[in-house]
């Protein structure tokens, strides 16, 4: 019900307001101009995504305007505004947070530029964005829980290493896991603490857990691989065998966790595919050519286990 905005009546003006900029790219019909507002560079996973997008842009001959938001929504909004000024064909965003995009997306819409959400959703009405490409954090949490149950035979004490408090990945991965956990009455989370998605904190928190619950921990669920890697070190320092004495399940699927799995120190990683570049630009092309695109383009994901890690690692690109 947000159609009746004050900007509604003169919707046409802003579109006209950038005629020189927005018509110019359209003159050289061939070249696709895309603006991409990336969140930042906070993890290995994100790095892989960035790499994939830059790479795909080059391969597909797209004129990419790339902006790194340094983890700040303000910066991403500024970037989108600037893209509008520059008159790009499509704007891609990996929103750092779900909310708060209404205004700027509207501006893009008025300028006739479609928005593509990448890997995270935004809480705006459906008409404000063209499509969403990416996965589902809740699903990842559920999968992780299923894997944990498989490893522990549905019975045991788990400690959870959460991501940064308030980050949507952390909240949803926690939610997904907790939901699924209801199906396994003999498994329970005995301690849960934030490790800020980092190895150092993951290790520090795990150290404290090991002392507070000596011999009681059977599994570690980490919201990302990095914290799991930190926890593995803490477990080793405690004289235990990670992956054997204490099972490790984490999310993301970065290369280092595969190495750990090969070494037998980690058990499962639930992948969340960052290599969205080709898919993203395909969607952009379609949008420019006026083709229909689905509202949700799902990315391909997988679950990788210790048993097959030695094989899988050969295909890992990041």
């Amino acid at each position, binding site marked *: 019900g947000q159609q009746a905005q004050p900007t509604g009546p003169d919707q046409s003006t802003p579109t006209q307001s950038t005629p020189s900029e927005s018509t110019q790219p359209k003159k050289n019909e061939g070249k696709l101009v895309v603006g991409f507002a990336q969140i930042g560079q906070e993890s290995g996973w994100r790095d892989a995504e960035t790499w994939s997008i*830059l790479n795909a842009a080059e391969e597909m001959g797209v004129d990419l305007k790339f*902006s790194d938001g340094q983890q*700040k929504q303000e910066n991403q909004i500024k970037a989108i505004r600037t893209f509008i000024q520059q008159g790009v064909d499509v704007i891609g965003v990996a929103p750092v947070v779900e909310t708060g995009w*209404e*205004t700027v997306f509207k501006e893009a819409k008025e300028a006739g530029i479609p928005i593509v959400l990448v890997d995270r959703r935004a809480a705006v009405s459906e008409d404000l964005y063209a499509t969403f490409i990416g996965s589902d954090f809740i699903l990842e949490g559920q999968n992780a829980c299923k894997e944990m149950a498989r490893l522990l035979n549905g019975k045991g004490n788990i400690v959870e290493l959460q991501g940064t408090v308030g980050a949507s990945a952390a909240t949803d991965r926690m939610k997904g896991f907790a939901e699924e956990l209801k199906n396994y009455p003999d498994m329970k989370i005995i301690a849960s603490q934030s490790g800020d998605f980092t190895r150092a904190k993951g290790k520090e928190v795990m150290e404290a857990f090991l002392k507070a619950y000596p011999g009681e921990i059977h599994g570690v669920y980490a919201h990302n691989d990095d914290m799991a890697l930190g926890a593995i070190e803490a477990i080793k320092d405690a004289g235990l065998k990670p992956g054997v004495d204490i099972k490790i399940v984490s999310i993301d699927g970065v290369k280092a966790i595969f190495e750990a799995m090969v070494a037998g120190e980690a058990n499962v990683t639930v992948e969340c595919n960052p290599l969205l570049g080709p898919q993203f630009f395909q969607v952009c092309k379609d949008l420019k050519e006026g083709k229909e695109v689905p509202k949700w383009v799902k990315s391909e994901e997988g679950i990788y286990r210790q048993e097959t890690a030695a094989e899988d690692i050969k295909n890992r690109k990041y």
Partner: protein
Amino acid sequence: MKKGILSKNFQLFVTIVLFLVLFLAGSLRYRGFFSAQVFLNLFIDNAYLIIIAVGLTFVLISGGIDISVASVVAFVGMLSAYLLQNGWNPYVVMLLMLLIGSTGGFLMGYIIHYFKIQPFIATLAGQFLYRGACFIISTTSIIIDNPVYTTIANYQIKLAPKAYISISVVIALLVVIAGTIMARFSKFGRAVYAVGGNEQSANLMGLPVGRIKVLVYVLSGFCAALGGIVFSFYTLSGYGLQNIGLEMDAIASSVIGGTLLTGGVGSVVGSMFGVLIQGIIQTIIIFQGNLSSWWTKVAVASLLCLFIVLQRIISANRDKFKRKMLNNA
């Protein structure tokens, strides 16, 4: 007389000139940069920061520091989103936010002055407190769909067919004007300068130092809350992780605008230009359009460094510079 104005506001003058140079450089280098809307976007995108920087400037001039402002913004966004969701009247919410900001500022100012707690530490505690309070409300972000908020957020004031500003910009400019008047023409403002120049002397001259120091933090808290409200217009949501590190942007803006962190010197208009300069650096980087995360950081820092060093060198050689001006004239 004109010479007097120039020499007294020399640093501000240098800052403005360098700002224009940056804008010009951007315009020459990037297509589409030289447009009214790009310029106005600097205000639209940084309105909240301008407001916060104005409040902070008073604290810095008084010789203190307030690193809680970023968390105040996050907290205000969070709490107003929460309250609006629960059907509170938007105007009541806004008033309440301003009240909370001011009260928080008052408490920090009170313990800073009366219990001699170092400002950095007291406001660091404030920072943790506000941030923590955000997560008590909710760990996820909350959307604001109150019609009043969305109307204000989306309203565009047309200046020309191709140029508009938002209501937030108007608020920010009003704050700058009010701040300038307060700093230059009110007893309170002048007393702030005196306290920052020499607290002991100010006390011996009979100024109510305690009250002024507390008020300065109240003002900063108020501005931070107002900045928070404007920021919630900007994003129409509340989110606990919002604006981490914003206090450094505000402090840096103020310093770029000529404020001395040791107190006693600074101007509100200067701080506004400080914000605009950081904004334009950001814009240049986005226009560049091919910087990776790390090059973005390096580029921001280099531009900032270049700017500050230039400003320092010109100001340090101000006498030589002035002599030249005189000779030319």
